[in-house]
């Protein structure tokens, strides 16, 4: 099998194939069940958005209401004033947050998936031991690791530099484990052999064969990593105002008590937008890359 044949094969399979194993009653039950469950899961999101439009008297009202009655954009309109009192312009925090999140996410995906490929398809000794270590490390509670980690950060001079955002996430084991499982199930050895016979070296095989084949998983990993890094607060590790990121500014704004509860919710809603965008982009690309049989096909 050559590489070309493999991908042609794949494309041929993508063209709609009728599934013989579906009943209409089953489909209808499924739709109803999923919509009910989905709406239930959406509740907190709806609550956040609705609360961010509540005027002050509705925020304080008792009993609390789920939905807003007289929506106002006041909570959002006051944000520029609150921001104006910051010592460093807001744009600096935005640039920090966006830059750090994207850079770290992209580098981590490469680091993790290269390691995953190496562990799942390599033939060198010790790769099994490494894999079990990765799995077990995932189970050691991160809480008690914080103190030794802090000592290592300060020994390496990472405290109060950009590196404290970028380097520690590289040690995250979740992406390696996820990638390894996915490559094992979805990248056939025959495909790799074909590429090698065509003269590609290991790096080329990884970049131009493995990465396209495992697109669904790196898109999903992109989402997990971005979400985590976007909302992480490096407490006690950053002191310079110029190096701080948005979640730290948010805590400054929300520190105002009940009077600022509305603006705090407005900020929370704004902070949710980038992860949601990343979610929509990544998941719709997952769907595009491997469209599978749907009910309507």
């Amino acid at each position: 099998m050559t590489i070309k044949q493999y991908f042609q094969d794949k494309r041929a399979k993508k063209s709609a194939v009728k599934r013989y194993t579906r009943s209409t009653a089953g489909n209808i039950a499924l739709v109803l069940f999923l919509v009910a469950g989905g709406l239930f899961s959406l509740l907190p999101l709806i609550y956040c958005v609705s609360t961010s439009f509540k005027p002050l008297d509705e925020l304080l009202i008792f009993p609390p209401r789920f939905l807003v009655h007289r929506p106002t954009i006041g909570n959002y309109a006051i944000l520029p004033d609150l921001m104006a009192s910051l010592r460093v312009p807001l744009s600096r925090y935005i640039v920090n947050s966006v830059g750090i999140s994207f850079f770290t996410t992209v580098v981590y995906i490469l680091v993790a998936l290269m390691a995953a490929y190496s562990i799942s398809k390599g033939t060198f000794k010790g790769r099994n031991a490494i894999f079990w270590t990765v799995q077990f490390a995932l189970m050691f509670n991160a809480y008690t690791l914080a103190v030794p980690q802090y000592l290592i950060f300060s020994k390496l001079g990472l405290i109060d530099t950009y590196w404290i955002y970028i380097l520690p996430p590289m040690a995250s084991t979740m992406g390696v484990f996820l990638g390894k499982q996915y490559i094992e199930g979805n990248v056939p050895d025959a495909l790799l052999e074909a590429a090698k016979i065509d003269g590609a070296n290991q790096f080329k095989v990884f970049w131009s064969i493995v990465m396209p084949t495992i697109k669904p998983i790196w898109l999903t990993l992109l989402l997990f990593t971005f979400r985590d890094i976007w909302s992480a607060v490096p407490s006690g590790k950053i002191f310079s105002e110029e190096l701080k990121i948005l979640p730290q500014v948010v805590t400054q704004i929300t520190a105002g008590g009940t009077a600022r509860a509305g603006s705090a919710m407005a900020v929370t809603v704004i902070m949710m937008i980038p992860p949601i965008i990343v979610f929509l982009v990544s998941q719709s690309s997952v769907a595009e890359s491997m469209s599978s049989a749907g009910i309507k096909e």
Partner: protein
Amino acid sequence: MFKNKNGDAAVIPAASKKLRNYSRDKMLTEHIPMLIMLAPFLIFFFVFTIIPIFASIALSFTSYDMIASPKFIWIDNYRRMIVEDTTFSTTVRNTLTFAIIAGPLGFLMSFVLAWFVNEFTPKIRAILSFMFYAPSLVGNAYFIWKVAFSGDSYGYINSFLLSIGVIAEPIVWLKTEAYLMPIIIVVQLWQSMGVSFLSNISGLQNVSRDMYEAGAIDGIRNRWQELRYITLPAMQPMLLFSAVMQIQASFSASTIMIELAGYPSKNMAVDSIVSLMTDMATVRYELGYACAMSVVLFIMMVAARLLVGKILKLFEK
């Protein structure tokens, strides 16, 4: 491979030279590039995870308050935990109850939902997965449950039950021992549709099309047979991943419990090992003792992981 003992090399010199070249080539073209790709992760993993884990295990044999330097006390922490500390045994019981119920249920739910959602066309699938993933996007979404289970007559659940006449008095949900564990488990399940759910969805994308076709020809009649004989075996690696994530999440749960029920909760009904550990480390500054707890928790999780591996093997073919 071929061992060259005395004389062999002399008999077939050409062949043995070829073999040597072959293994050197393999070293250059296979192993070294693979190790180069593994190296970046391995270095960070060693420095930021492995060293701290060993440091933390070492600290578990000490008395350490984060101010004075650690004092070596042999296994006193472990003795205290097992023999003296009744709080610890309560938290172990709570953690196990919670993990045994919420872990497998969360695992099943995240697979079943992914399997259902995957039946749809890409656009609908994206919308549905967004809905189920929403609690993970909101972050601290459990606050909505605090309002729902509020103990006065204005909490959503109390006011609903009062209005339909099921109860006459508002129930103080989060301060009643009997209700706490079920409530926490429900909230955890509702919130756990994150990582496992989405990774199951991307796993299902690649379950090969001709496997389904071949199955249909071979006489697979309905969804259930298809699931058992085609999807489950093909999803094996992703299911293992999702199981490990559930073990991790259910054994180390504490945020939901502390936020909803407070710490300590009523009669310690839902205090988990990690809740107690957090308290030891941040309030009482007994870091050595907290480390010993995390070692015990780690051993419990590893045992659960090995057990789950055995169970999943049953579904392999």
